[in-house]
């Protein structure tokens, strides 16, 4: 909120995170939404400051989970992500580790792959431009190089650049971004980014199974036209909705992702599909279906992040971790047997 004081012209063209708004950005409806959301943000900010009582520490609890589902105020976001993901503990238990990684001898291939993507990570964000001062490309480079040396089995996979970029925008701190990236890739997400990408392929199939259970007509449409789930949703998983959904909505999703884990991704995906069921079912051919899946991630429904986040916990119905784990197991076996 406080960023809006920086000047209306600037705030209009560039969002608070540095992303340039597209030419066709609907300012009027965004203003209408934001003035309502501001009320929510203010209420939540008061609640959170009472919860934290200035000691900047929390324990996981039903109350904290509820608070997180209603959104972490931006000024506390980095801290709460650090605590609930376990990143804070890891950072404290490994003092100096991040900086030692950066001093190590580097793997040339890894460095080259990361360098290739420096100018190709958020070219629409003014803070990531070469000309920006400070230019966040340096932090991005360091975090990705350190992570590639820390987790050699994963190294660097395209997509991680966008995730690390978001972490840097929120924490404004390289070391914290590194430990949050480790929490996501090392613990919260199954192996999405390792060379075989088996976790990613599995989760795409799991989503297909969940759609069969919860939105069968859409599953039937996909099957009839031979549209594999990976064609329309791979980016949802790999980039955790970055560039798919509006920034504010992505951050609200990540609040829950850090606390509740990867099942949040399925909740979001199922909500998008279920909400737009009738619209998706209008598609009569393969390209139509692909087009519909692009469109369902745009518009008021996803911009209104507060009501969207309420819907992800009600619309898809019950979704237990046991169900997901079971589906993951069967889908994984099926993929492995297919070779």
């Amino acid at each position: 909120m406080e960023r809006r004081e920086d000047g209306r012209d600037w705030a209009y063209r560039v969002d608070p995170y540095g992303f340039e708004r597209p030419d066709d950005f609907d300012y009027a409806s965004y203003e209408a939404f934001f003035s309502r959301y501001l009320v929510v943000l203010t209420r939540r900010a008061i609640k959170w400051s009472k919860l934290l009582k200035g000691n900047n520490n929390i324990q996981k609890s039903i109350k904290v989970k509820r608070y997180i589902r209603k959104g972490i105020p931006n000024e506390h976001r980095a801290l709460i992500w650090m605590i609930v993901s376990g990143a804070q503990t890891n950072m404290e238990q490994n003092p100096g580790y991040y900086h030692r990684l950066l001093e190590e001898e580097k793997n040339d291939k890894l460095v080259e792959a990361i360098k290739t993507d420096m100018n190709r990570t958020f070219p629409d964000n003014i803070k990531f431009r070469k000309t920006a001062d400070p230019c966040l490309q340096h932090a991005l480079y360091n975090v990705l190089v350190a992570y590639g040396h820390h987790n050699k089995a994963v190294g660097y996979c395209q997509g991680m650049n966008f995730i690390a970029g978001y972490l840097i925008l929120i924490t404004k701190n390289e070391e914290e971004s590194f430990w949050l990236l480790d929490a996501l890739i090392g613990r919260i997400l199954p192996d999405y980014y390792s060379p075989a990408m088996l976790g990613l392929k599995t989760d795409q199939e799991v989503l297909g199974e969940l759609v069969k259970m919860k939105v069968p007509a859409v599953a039937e449409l996909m099957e009839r036209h031979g549209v594999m789930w990976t064609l329309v949703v791979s980016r949802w998983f790999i980039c955790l909705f970055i560039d798919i959904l509006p920034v504010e909505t992505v951050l609200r999703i990540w609040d829950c992702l850090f606390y509740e884990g990867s099942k949040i991704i399925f909740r979001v995906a199922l909500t998008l599909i279920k909400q737009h069921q009738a619209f998706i079912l209008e598609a009569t051919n393969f390209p139509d279906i692909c087009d519909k899946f692009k469109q369902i991630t745009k518009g008021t429904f996803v911009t209104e992040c507060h009501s969207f986040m309420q819907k992800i916990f009600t619309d898809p119905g019950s979704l237990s971790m046991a169900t997901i784990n079971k589906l993951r197991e069967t889908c994984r076996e099926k993929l492995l047997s297919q070779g």
Partner: protein
Amino acid sequence: MTSRGAARPNGQSQASKICQFKLVLLGESAVGKSSLVLRFVKGQFHEYQESTIGAAFLTQSVCLDDTTVKFEIWDTAGQERYHSLAPMYYRGAQAAIVVYDITNQETFARAKTWVKELQRQASPSIVIALAGNKADLASKRMVEYEEAQAYADDNSLLFMETSAKTAMNVNDLFLAIAKKLPKSEPQSTSGAAGRSRGVDLHEQSQQNKSQCCSN
């Protein structure tokens, strides 16, 4: 919305036939696959194009005489890691553009392995085009035109050097592919352009431009 809104107005709406083809772009990371598509579909170029994750889907049509050829384009991620996802994108594709960067010899080697994979795994009738992109950076050239042309000839590929930045040969490449694709009667229009050797497209391109809705 993006793909549909992006399709340029079709200059020959009276075209009697509409043919749809699935086309996939393959090639090493950062050779300009997305930039070629952006140039072809929207007529735009960004100096820094965001890296493609998974794949992007777009459509664009070109007109050939009385036929509208509608391309369903799958623009894939170039990083080696995404290789295992690629078969899902080229499966059932009638055309492929394998892209390399003329300033980087390694990307040409990678293009060759893509061509081999397509010849082995994709549909036997797939039309493969080789694009040597970033032709505007001729002063940094590392892959000779003749070398690539000879390779394309040996493998019956369409071949052009392109520049997504200057738009050089971008529409022409898609047009050449459209020409080579079988329309209603399979193979009837592919004629001499057949599969025995690569075709020199430079002479045909001007002509194509004038009769088609490309801009």
